[in-house]
């Protein structure tokens, strides 16, 4: 009953604090939208300068969407050094010689792959048959890490707001005042989980809906499961945030915890490919909650998997919430022993 009152109070506080509501809902949406603009761009079409090449080779390049320009020897290299083109191709005794501009590795790679495939095609003339188990041919990289970003932004904002809010309760003296009432310590923690829980359910729904229906991030699984995971993410962030706030003396210190608590989780969550890292380092990811969030969301959204494939992620996230909620109840002992 008292936990319910704490919940109502938190919701009322949020209701009066429009800026926080705005921040928690619109900031993730803004960043996700920007990310989708940046990473959803179509494949890069390399600009290639030709000095001397067989006509079949050139038309083959053009059919692969390369922008081909003809140059003579001197102005070709001029164009290359002034960054107007990405590469110069010159056939010397039947062998293509490629000179790359080279300052952007991803552009260089695109050119090399294009030239190699064109060269080999003109010899063999056969096409490789490619099919996809998951994903599809034009899948953008945003589709791949979008699910992680959804999880990350929910985690990040809930962590910060919950931590700062609980810290405020401590520094303003209301926590002490509250502890002078017959409230149990667990009722405070449960009240916080419920209060922010209700709010983050709304937040998660909006963010997930926006990502899928407006940003058209790839989504082949169940929306209900996505919601389940995002809500669990918010609850985990909430319990971790309130726990961490016990070790911060002011809001600035709470922010200083972000590089320690949040950023490493991002590195190990799968946003970056870690498969070349030594296995014991990769294993660090397994102790960060965000890894399980990312794993579950990718499985649902990209691979269309169901409950039977993500139950372990759900279990771990639920345990995280419970463990940190209990830790919070214990941490409150510092302020009142009973």
């Amino acid at each position, binding site marked *: 009953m008292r936990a319910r*009152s704490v919940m109502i109070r938190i919701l009322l506080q949020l209701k009066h604090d429009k800026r926080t509501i705005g921040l928690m809902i619109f900031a993730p949406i803004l960043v996700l939208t920007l990310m989708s603009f940046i990473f959803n761009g179509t494949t890069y079409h390399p600009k290639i300068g030709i000095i001397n090449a067989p006509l079949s080779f050139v038309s083959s390049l053009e059919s692969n969407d390369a922008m081909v320009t003809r140059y003579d020897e001197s102005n070709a290299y001029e164009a290359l050094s002034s960054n107007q083109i990405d590469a110069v191709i010159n056939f010397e005794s039947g062998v293509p010689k490629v000179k790359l501009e080279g300052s952007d590795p991803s552009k260089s790679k695109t050119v090399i792959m294009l030239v190699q495939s064109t060269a080999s095609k003109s010899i063999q003339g056969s096409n490789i048959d490619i099919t996809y188990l998951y994903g599809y041919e034009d899948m953008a990289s945003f589709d791949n890490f979008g699910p992680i970003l959804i999880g990350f932004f929910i985690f990040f904002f809930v962590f910060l707001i919950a931590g700062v809010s609980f810290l405020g309760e401590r520094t303003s003296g209301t926590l002490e005042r509250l502890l002078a*009432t*017959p409230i149990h310590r667990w009722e405070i923690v449960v009240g916080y989980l419920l209060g922010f829980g209700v709010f983050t359910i709304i937040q998660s729904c909006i963010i997930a809906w926006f990502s899928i229906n407006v940003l058209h991030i790839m989504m082949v699984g169940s929306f209900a499961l996505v919601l389940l995971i995002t809500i669990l993410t918010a609850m985990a962030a909430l319990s971790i945030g309130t726990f961490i706030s016990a070790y911060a003396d002011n809001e600035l210190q709470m922010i200083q915890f972000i590089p320690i608590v949040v950023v490493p989780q991002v590195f190990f969550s799968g946003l970056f490919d870690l498969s070349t890292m030594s296995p014991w380092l990769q294993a660090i990811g397994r102790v960060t909650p965000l890894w399980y969030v990312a794993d579950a969301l990718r499985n649902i959204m990209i691979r269309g998997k169901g409950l039977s494939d993500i139950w372990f992620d759900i279990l771990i996230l639920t345990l995280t919430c419970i463990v940190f909620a209990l830790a919070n109840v214990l941490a409150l002992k510092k302020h009142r022993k009973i």
Partner: protein
Amino acid sequence: MQNKIDKTSQSPACINIKNVNKSFGKKQVLFDINLIIPHFQILGLLGPSGSGKTTLVKMIAGVDSPTSGEIYLLNEKMPKLSMMNKIGYMAQSDALYGELTAKENLQFFASMYSLSKSKQKQRINEVMELVNLSEHLNKQVKQYSGGMKRRLSLAISLIHEPPVLLLDEPTVGIDPVLRKSIWAELYKLNSNGTTIVVTTHVMDEAEKCDNLGMIREGKLIAVGSPDELKHATSSSTIEGAFLHYGGA
């Protein structure tokens, strides 16, 4: 009034502090405090800031617990959760939720004491009337002045009609007219059977209490009514008495 006499006959002490020591880490802040506060009294704890008044009040309230020694409130050993219902506590800092309105603050704390909805409504009107804030009931607390916040804190501590009231510096930052009205209110509550412990560092305010406990550097240096203390030290003011006991 009948009720009052019955309680008195059961036990003369409302609050009984026995051999209480309190340390934070290595630093000891209270030394062997012994104090009996009878029912229906206004006891003033007088001492400079940093003398340990707040710590003592917090221990009586059950928020903090003694390092050694015992505190009994209405014959129950503190800290005890069920006894928190019997205590109205006003902290030194205004522990209010600034984003909420006064009414929402009051409702929240009333629900902590499990008051029914109708009782809440009735008590909110009563206490706000009492501290003269009725017209600001639906205003956000962050728009309140310092004095208004102090009065709202007092109203909150009274919401559940506690038999024991613990007030930590209740009149700091309040203008003399309002201070007088707050003291009038405390006398009224007291005559209705409320035991009140109030801390202060203002000497003239100490005169208003039935009994005084003087605290200096964590030690209770004197206990008695303001007149007793003045007579015993043959000084004309409380300040003079404090100086005498303080070893100046």
